[in-house]
């Protein structure tokens, strides 16, 4: 593993500036680091510079905002989201999803922002270098021209977004505040994700997810996670369901 330089930053504009001072691919952002350090260990990323975000103040915790919205700071640990009394009462499917990530150890470090921006995953890519040597590189790994998930596909990468909180946040109609040193924008969460696993989130270089904005609660909903190993694993798929807004039946006639 090549060594990296750790840069601790104090605010988002500084983080953004430091990121763009380096050539593309050289710098990465790190919040909890629970996925990033594994990717590095497996040789899937080779950062020269790691920009450490957890020293940024004001981006951790849940706070009510105007109009009944709830704002969750991106650096809020997943365990804090899972245990937050208001989140549990008003958005229980989000609390359940945050609590379904990894283990307590992972959730103490891992953040909700990191879960939303989690690198896409697949069984062929997220393996050690030893196991990856079984096949030639895939499209997501540099230089490959095949996707082992969809071998017949001519282009694209079918690695999936695997953040457990994404389905409930989408069902709840969450928006994301994306900030850089050049300004900020708010996007709906379903517009944040693309279809290619190599560039699956709509973050511009140097842009950082700072806050998650939830509209007022309207129904409890449910969250279900399917995973190969039930004790602790990344999801095969997740499902979040909220009843329809206007009170009409989901299946008319029943």
């Amino acid at each position: 593993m090549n060594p990296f330089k750790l840069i601790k930053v104090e605010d988002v504009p500084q983080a953004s500036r430091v990121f763009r001072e380096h050539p593309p691919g050289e710098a990465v952002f790190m919040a909890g680091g629970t996925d990033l350090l594994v990717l590095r260990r497996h040789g899937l990323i080779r950062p020269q510079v790691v920009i450490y975000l957890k020293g940024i103040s004001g981006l951790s915790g849940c706070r009510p905002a105007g109009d009944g919205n709830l704002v969750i700071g991106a650096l809020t640990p997943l365990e804090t989201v899972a245990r937050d009394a208001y989140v549990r009462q008003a958005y229980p499917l989000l609390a359940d999803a945050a609590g379904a990530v990894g283990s307590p150890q992972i959730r103490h470090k891992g953040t909700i922002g990191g879960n939303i921006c989690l690198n896409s995953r697949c069984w062929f890519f997220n393996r050690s270098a030893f196991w990856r040597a079984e096949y030639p590189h895939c499209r997501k790994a540099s230089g490959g021209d095949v996707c082992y998930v969809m071998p017949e596909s001519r282009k694209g990468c079918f690695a999936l977004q695997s953040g457990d909180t994404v389905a409930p946040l989408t069902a709840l109609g969450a928006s994301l505040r994306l900030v850089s040193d050049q300004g900020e924008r708010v996007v709906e969460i379903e517009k944040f994700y693309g279809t290619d696993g190599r560039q699956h989130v709509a973050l511009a270089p140097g842009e950082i997810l700072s806050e998650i904005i939830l509209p007022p609660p309207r129904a409890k909903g449910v969250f279900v996670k399917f995973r190969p190993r039930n004790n602790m694993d990344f999801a095969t798929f997740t499902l979040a369901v909220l009843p329809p807004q206007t009170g009409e039946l989901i299946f008319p006639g029943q």
Partner: protein
Amino acid sequence: MTSVLNFSVNGEAVRLEVDDDETLLEVLRDRLHLTGAKEGCGEGQCGHCTVILNGESVNSCLTLALEAQGGRCLTIEGLSSGERLHAVQQAFVDQGAIQCGYCTPGMVLSAVDLLNKIPEPQEHEIREGLKGVMCRCTGYYKIFEAVKQAAAAENKGDSQ
């Protein structure tokens, strides 16, 4: 790149120069010779590297040493008070909740973290609290029994 790391380990102030990419586990084991925390998988699956950093259990293999800057780290070596075992350690001994012992430091510290947050855990809360540590010797039942004993002992004010 190196930086100076100042933090406390088991109540003692530590100051040493570390590489930016060095993990907390490497510092604890290779520099401070605290070998209770183990590297099983190195990717957050097995939990054998569990330590308590600033009051929260973490995988020290997925924690950069410099993240502990100014913090407090508790390892298994710092849990007992001299000869007197912590209630969780005593319960593991009493219940025979140990076979090869490799996972035991992580199990014990996970249980300590759990009982700090939930003093009287239900069965499902014990399972959730310990899910981050993997034991490959046997079932987990004696370990669950030990956590129940420790909870009962602590709630009687029997512990330190």
